[in-house]
């Protein structure tokens, strides 16, 4: 049997099991309720806007104009669900009242699709992307748990505390995967050093692990800090009964001596916030999420910003400056996050409501050599779509209705498997997902000639291209619908004049072919591979 067949059988069996265990939810009721109150914008938004305005004024920069609403809808939907908005969603959006962007944002934030997608993105930072045969299923369980936490909008500090201090089996305590995924085959226990690196990067926005071999060149972290952090995990055990605490301590090789040396747990800053009593991981968790710990809130703000903008507010995402060098927005949002008990949904809503998020993605003002590097945020940044966003956009644009929890699970299972293959071939960004990456030739080949693209664009009954060709009342309308489905915008007059005449007088298969070719062109244009 070929590996791929084995994989297919595993997927089928896995889905069966997953359904039974409730890992993948069947159709759940959509969250949007018509006519409900849209909560007001968090007041921190005004302060952030003010700070950016102040910065632009000081530098003499004229910011870009406000982006068209559909453009904002596209970036919002891509960031929160990993796909472009469906024609159905666009139609509903355009029929809505004046503050429809805020209303849509609120809906999306409560949508299970968004929770699933954001959970997957966050999981990259928390448990990585390793995909060994035993890890895949446990990872899905972890992502499902995280997704539930997001839907319920559980306070973020509580969620993090569960990951760091958790005990038990991964089946009923999915959070412990944070620990068990680092299990070292040789020592048969979670790896304290990898855990220290994860904690510092994911929750403190600091690369304390750089100090694993040497003291950090630009930051105050030392090798002692790193080892002190690792020592909190020195007694952690992982076996068939799950995560537990053992006896012995963390004994890395001493610097210089090369001999194992016992290291006592210690935190790299603000030791007074560390509880004196309790099991080591409970103490560490309490310190990490302590409201006075300055690193925790800033790290989550920078990550949430990156999820929405495609680029962190401070680059790289996990190496935040320790003092005041950061843009004021970072600390304003961090303060608000703390003041509201670590409300992640509020934070996401605040960032997506800022003026900066809703600016046009025009060239940054002035003569900047590298527009990709613009750190003034005076125009929305253009970033390459992530592989699964490209796959998601491809799947979504080929179907008229929104795909998501309401799509039958078989269809989603197939989409998941197809998408995974596509993502693998497209080149998954891995954990380092916000590092800028160049486009590659295989990516272009895959989008031009790949099986999935052919399957999704060819004039077949279920594909949008066919349905648009059959159902659009006029040629111009057919072109417009194709543009809306793929690029979430209407064609310019020039574009309309170029494409509509192609459809003139056509019918049946010939007409469907022209629309399918238009879909192909739109999918292969730079615009559809970039967030803008």
């Amino acid at each position, binding site marked *: 049997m070929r590996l791929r067949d084995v994989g297919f059988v595993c997927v089928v069996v896995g889905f069966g099991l997953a359904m039974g265990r409730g890992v993948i939810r069947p159709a759940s009721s959509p969250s949007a309720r018509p006519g409900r109150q849209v909560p007001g914008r968090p007041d921190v938004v005004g302060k952030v806007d003010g700070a950016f305005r102040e910065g632009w004024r000081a530098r003499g920069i004229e910011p870009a104009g406000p982006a068209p609403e559909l453009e904002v809808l596209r970036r919002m939907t891509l960031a929160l669900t990993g796909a472009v908005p469906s024609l159905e969603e666009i139609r509903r959006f355009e029929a809505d009242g004046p503050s429809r962007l805020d209303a849509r944002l609120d809906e999306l934030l409560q949508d299970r699709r968004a929770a699933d997608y954001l959970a997957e993105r966050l999981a990259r930072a928390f448990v990585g992307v390793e995909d060994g045969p035993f890890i895949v299923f446990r990872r899905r369980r972890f992502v499902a748990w995280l997704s539930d936490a997001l839907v319920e909008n559980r306070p973020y500090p509580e969620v993090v505390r569960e990951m760091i201090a958790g005990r038990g089996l991964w089946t009923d305590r999915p959070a412990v995967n944070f620990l068990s995924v680092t299990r070292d085959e040789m020592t048969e226990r979670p790896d304290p050093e990898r855990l220290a690196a994860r904690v510092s990067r994911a929750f403190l926005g600091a690369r304390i692990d750089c100090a694993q071999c040497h003291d950090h060149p630009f930051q105050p972290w030392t090798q002692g800090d790193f080892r002190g952090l690792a020592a909190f995990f020195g007694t952690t055990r992982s076996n068939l009964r799950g995560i537990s605490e053992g006896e012995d301590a963390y004994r890395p090789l001493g610097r210089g001596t090369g001999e194992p040396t016992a290291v006592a747990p210690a935190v790299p800053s603000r030791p007074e916030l560390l509880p004196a009593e309790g099991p080591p991981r409970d103490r560490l968790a309490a310190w990490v999420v302590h409201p006075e710990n300055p690193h925790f809130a800033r790290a989550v703000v920078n990550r949430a910003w990156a999820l929405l903008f495609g680029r962190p507010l401070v*680059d790289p995402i996990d190496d935040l400056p320790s003092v005041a060098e950061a843009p004021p927005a970072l600390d304003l949002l961090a303060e608000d996050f703390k003041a509201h008990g670590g409300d992640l949904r509020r934070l996401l809503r605040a960032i997506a409501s800022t003026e900066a998020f809703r600016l*046009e993605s025009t060239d940054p003002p002035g003569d900047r050599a590298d527009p990709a590097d613009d750190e003034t945020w005076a125009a929305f940044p253009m970033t390459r779509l992530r592989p699964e966003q490209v796959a998601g956009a491809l799947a979504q644009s080929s179907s008229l209705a929104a795909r998501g929890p309401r799509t039958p699970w078989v269809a989603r299972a197939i989409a998941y498997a197809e998408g995974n293959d596509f993502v693998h071939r497209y080149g998954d960004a891995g954990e380092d997902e916000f590092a800028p990456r160049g486009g590659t030739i295989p*990516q272009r080949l*895959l989008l031009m000639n790949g099986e999935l693209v052919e399957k999704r664009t060819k004039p077949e009954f279920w594909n949008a291209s066919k349905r648009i060709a059959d159902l659009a009342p006029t040629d111009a309308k057919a072109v417009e619908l194709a543009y809306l489905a793929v690029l979430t915008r209407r064609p310019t007059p020039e574009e309309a004049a170029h494409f509509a005449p192609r459809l003139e007088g056509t019918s049946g298969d010939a007409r469907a072919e022209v629309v399918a070719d238009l879909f192909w062109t*739109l999918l292969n244009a*730079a615009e559809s591979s970039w967030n803008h």
Partner: protein
Amino acid sequence: MNLDRRGFLTLAGLGWLTPAARLLARQAEALDGPAGSIILLWLGGGPSQLETFDPHPDAPTSGGTRAIDTAVKGVRLASGYERLAAEMGSVALIRSMTSKEGDHERGTYMLKTGYRPDPTVVHPSIGAICCHELPVGPVDVPRHVSILAGRWPGRGGFLGGEYDAFQVDDPRGKLPDVSAFVPAGRDARRALDLDVVDRAFARGRSARVEATLHRRAVASARGMMSSEQLRAFDVSQEPAGTLAEYGDSPFGRGCLAARRLIEVGVRCVEVTLDGWDSHVANHEVHRGLAAQLDPAFAALVRDLRRRDLLRRTVVLCCGEFGRTPRLNPFAGRDHWTNGFSLALAGGGLRAGLAVGETDPEGLKDPARPVRVEDVHATVLTALGLAPSRENVAPLTGRPIKLSEGRVIPELLG
């Protein structure tokens, strides 16, 4: 029959030899310099050193594995490698490899990049390094190719996605994604239409759209779609005898395609033979795989040597780690990093010898241990690259050496 030159070459099975490639080939021949390409035979899952390059037939750990003599006196291989044994004069073994990574993904990273996984940076694989460091010839096809790519093909890492390996399946099948699903006329028209859409998008953001280099990538991809060099992937152009020498297996065909790709100027070809993770029934697993590896590896070395390509091509054959000397209750062997084997050939490296020695029981550390990074430093040096050369990782600005290892003196210098 009216034959033009290209038609003749095609019939003669030399169609890939376009003028540009021929020029390159001639240039390369004229050069008596260092090696210019690397072929990585990747044994995914981690092969047992005892059933391949480092047999200990008399030890209780052998489990019945026998050893055979080779063309080199004193160097023996496990039975099943009779063809490779005949080529031993062109092959060097290292039997004392050590690593700290006993997990498949991490071990693969270690062997392919020469660095331990590091959350602060993704290191490029050795193939990506070659593509980045060595001069670019007139090649339309990707210069980093992974045939039968396993789960973790060579990556560009911090050098960028454009150095990732281009992944292809069994060369017997159709090359993926290089031909349009629609007739040429339609395909050309829809590609021309891209201009209309890109123009609209560039309005107000021309500098940013320019910086995406999207059009350049599209143009290169389309150039590749119509390139004559794609024939290098097509092993059916080879005489039946050559195909048979390499073995009638996807891996054998992959090795043959690797040689053809090297000839058109591809820098690194990775050919994967998966399935060595023999936690159960180790000996049966290894017997089956040896039947594929032995003919392919031997034929590749012989073929490269006959074509005078071996001097300029490094062949490296390894997996992510070795396997425990002790057999487990399921007659399997588990992961083992303290004394495993790999094989090297070509690139002007010394051959016909075995470096290092292991304890048959695995109780003592191997004699003359060799670290993974030392192999990398050696291969890079054979390719004319200084391991100490640094590239700067983006974002952190951290300078990172091509390899932190030391050249293995037994093989070079």
